[in-house]
């Protein structure tokens, strides 16, 4: 078990370093921060002075080693735009993003899983067909379309909700809905098929033949078995708590991580972009790690030979 955890931790760390490296290289190959920050018409000396002061004149590998070293010392660099520490800038935006993504996650779980389970237990009924239809519609509409449609309906036509901005919880309603609808659909579809699969298993018939009440067959015998595939998907959703709102934050001008990321990328604000990507990768990796450990708790068969 200890070896399993250690192996997983090592892999998680490797993943994070891979993401960091990739971000570092791509950012530096895809544009010159000096040009973007200073504008097109500045003298060459000013550009070179800028590069020198940010260490951009050194060879790429030297920059990379310096970057890695700094990260391990806990130094995430400084924003080129306002010279404040990148980490502080990023963390400052985290609460705003979580204000959208956590309620959205709760909606996804609270509506998606029950809808899917109910549909599975009433397979081929009208409600089942309705759930499938809504679920497919939910996850096939891209969030930028859905967001605009919701704005059109609730802000423009009905005028009951604001079309963008932040400040009160009312501003969060439309973006939260936009983020969650796709996830509700995916989770409903997924829970439904996981549950249908499990309900067809011989041990469900055994439980019924034993005299277990129907509701307890579902709750005590079927759900624990259906949980394994569902947890996989939920883990992915938890992992995208930070990164899952980039498009929606932009649509609704919500001051979260997503908007900071977009602004920083277009400004080539290297330290900030790297810091955000590192955070996104770390959250995703940690949630995957937790899912892996949960598998063992949920299914004893996976304890003996952990998937590698």
């Amino acid at each position, binding site marked *: 078990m200890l070896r399993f955890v250690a192996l997983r931790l090592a892999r998680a760390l490797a993943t994070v370093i891979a993401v960091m490296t990739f971000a570092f290289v791509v950012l530096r190959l895809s544009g010159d921060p000096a040009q973007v920050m200073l504008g097109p018409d500045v003298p060459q000396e000013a550009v070179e002075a800028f590069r020198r002061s940010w260490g951009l004149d050194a060879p790429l590998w030297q920059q990379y080693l310096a970057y890695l070293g700094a990260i391990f010392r806990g130094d995430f660099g400084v924003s080129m735009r306002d010279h404040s520490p990148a980490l502080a800038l990023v963390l400052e935006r985290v609460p705003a993003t979580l204000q959208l993504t956590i309620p959205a996650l709760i909606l996804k779980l609270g509506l998606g899983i029950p809808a899917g389970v109910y549909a599975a237990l009433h397979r081929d009924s009208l409600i089942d067909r309705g759930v499938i239809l809504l679920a497919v519609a939910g996850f096939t509409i891209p969030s930028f379309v859905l967001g605009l449609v919701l704005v059109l309906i609730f802000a423009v036509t009905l005028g009951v909700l604001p079309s963008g901005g932040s400040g009160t919880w009312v501003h969060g309603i439309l973006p939260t809905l936009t983020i969650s609808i796709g996830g509700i659909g995916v989770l409903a579809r997924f829970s439904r098929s996981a549950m249908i699969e499990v309900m067809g*298993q*011989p*041990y469900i*018939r*055994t*439980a*019924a*033949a*034993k*005299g*277990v*009440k*129907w509701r307890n067959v579902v709750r*005590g*015998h079927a759900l*624990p*078995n259906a949980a394994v595939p569902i947890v996989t998907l939920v883990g992915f959703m938890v992992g995208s708590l930070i990164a899952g709102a980039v498009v929606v934050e932009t649509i609704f001008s919500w001051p979260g991580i997503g908007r900071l990321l977009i602004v920083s990328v277009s400004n080539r604000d290297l330290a900030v972009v790297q810091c955000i990507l590192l955070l996104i990768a770390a959250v995703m990796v940690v949630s995957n790690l937790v899912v892996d450990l949960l598998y063992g708790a*949920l*299914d*004893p*068969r996976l304890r*003996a030979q952990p998937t590698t």
Partner: protein
Amino acid sequence: MDRLVEIRDLRVAFDGVPVLHGIDLDVAPGEALGLVGESGCGKSVTWLAALGLLPAKARVTGSVRLGAGELVGAPREALETVRGKRIAMIFQDPSSALNPVIRVGRQICEALRLHRDLRGAAAKAEAIRLMEMVGIPDAPRRFDLYTHEFSGGQCQRLMIAMALAGRPDLLIADEPTTALDATIQAQILELLARLRRETGMATVFISHDLGAVAQICERVCVMYAGRIVEAGPVERLFAHPRHPYTRGLFDAIPQMTGPRRRLVPIPGTVPDPRALPPGCAFAPRCTRAHDACSRARPDLLAQPDGRTLACAYPVPEARADSFSMERAMT
């Protein structure tokens, strides 16, 4: 005859396709009854229908009486008090018939709580006793293990322990040894026979293995295409099979004693339930069939020797002398 279960004209149809065409069957208290036939002949469906365990799309008509109660069409709550408590059922492929994510001890305890209101330490002690009774070695330690930590044969023992937990009047064993290898099969059969002696519960043994049926049953029903074609005491049927289908089942068993003999398979396959022949369902495969057989279906009639038989041109008794009980046992 004193009757525990009385099945009358039980019919089952899936999506409008009849698969069970009116079964009449009685089970006496404490008796061991064998149900024999090829896959799909309706052996298991009969009892799944009786307990209301078929999927919702199955249409079940007729009557299954257990004591004073009628099971066909009974509300789910009523059936839930019968299942496991009055009639328990075990299945083939025991490894997948037990829940993989619940400790086996807890699965047995669940039955004890439902049917005997045992909880906590009392339930655990009784579960361990049952596990020992069905021959699980080192039961106290293995109480907390999961299904995948047991072999197939041990899983079937656990299934049996779970079935015994409710002290049922009737145990339906649905091909309990089909998925197991030969030596384990013999052990499980022996266990079932012993438990019946010790507990006095009736057993319905569903199988396509005639030898296994001979070993533990007193009475046997041979089913073909959703009907009973021959039934009677096990010695009589096995010594003198009279329905050509029963006879065919014996001819297809290898013989351990006597001269080497070519096995005679039954030609053809089981008919599709959507396109049953108009007369006797076995006629197209039957070597004794006359023209009349494909026009009129023979009724299941009581014979002077105590068996019931549905055949217009049965195997004459004199010709069947060479079939011995011993052969069926091999």
